[in-house]
């Protein structure tokens, strides 16, 4: 299960909507056990694409340092799917960088954005509950 504060969820969805028509992305900071995302790091999608995303590496570095300074760590990544379901694509699975991370998808294909979270380990996708506090 991944916990998100209402504020983090709101900021994440806003960032994804603001990124249209391209995919938007960012990183989640918090605690790994229990999995609690308390800080959102919206980042630039340097792929600048409606089908692909790449987190700006320098923003990743800064997010990593900021999380550490707060006594937290980066626990996952979020990105939007502009016209498809909030489910990891084959590209998402192939490029998942860390089996310990949470992979949050935000689908913008319907009027109400859908937020779902997954673990991706050795190519296997497992959905997890998202608890918004």
């Amino acid at each position: 299960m991944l916990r998100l504060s209402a504020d983090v969820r709101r900021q994440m969805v806003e960032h994804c909507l603001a990124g249209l028509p391209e995919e938007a992305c960012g990183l989640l900071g918090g605690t790994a056990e229990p999995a609690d995302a308390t800080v959102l790091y919206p980042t630039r999608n340097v792929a600048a694409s409606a089908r692909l995303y790449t987190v700006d590496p320098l923003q990743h570095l800064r997010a990593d340092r900021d999380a550490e300074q707060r006594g937290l760590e980066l626990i996952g990544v979020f990105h939007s799917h502009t016209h498809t379901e909030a489910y990891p694509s084959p590209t998402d699975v192939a490029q998942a960088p860390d089996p310990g991370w949470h992979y949050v998808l935000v689908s913008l294909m319907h009027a109400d954005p859908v937020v779902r979270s997954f673990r991706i380990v050795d190519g296997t996708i497992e959905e997890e509950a998202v608890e918004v506090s």
Partner: protein
Amino acid sequence: MPVEVRLPTVLRHHAGGQASVRANGETLSDVFDDLVRQFPGLAHQVVTDDGALHKFVNVYRNDDDVRYLDKLETKVSDGDVISILPAVAGG
């Protein structure tokens, strides 16, 4: 030159769980060679068999992406912080 090397979570188990380790060298290539000497499990994780940086790894010397410096021939100085981060991408 002794430098600090910060490891991403996904590689830390190769270094006994450490998030940060020390390594020596004049260039990044030397530093990574020293890192692998200390922690053989890190072999092939950052540098390919062809001697290049892995496509899905980003390496910073302090705030500078080494791809825009001299890549693995980037010189390092005493006290530099080398950060290794996985590329985060998908679709």
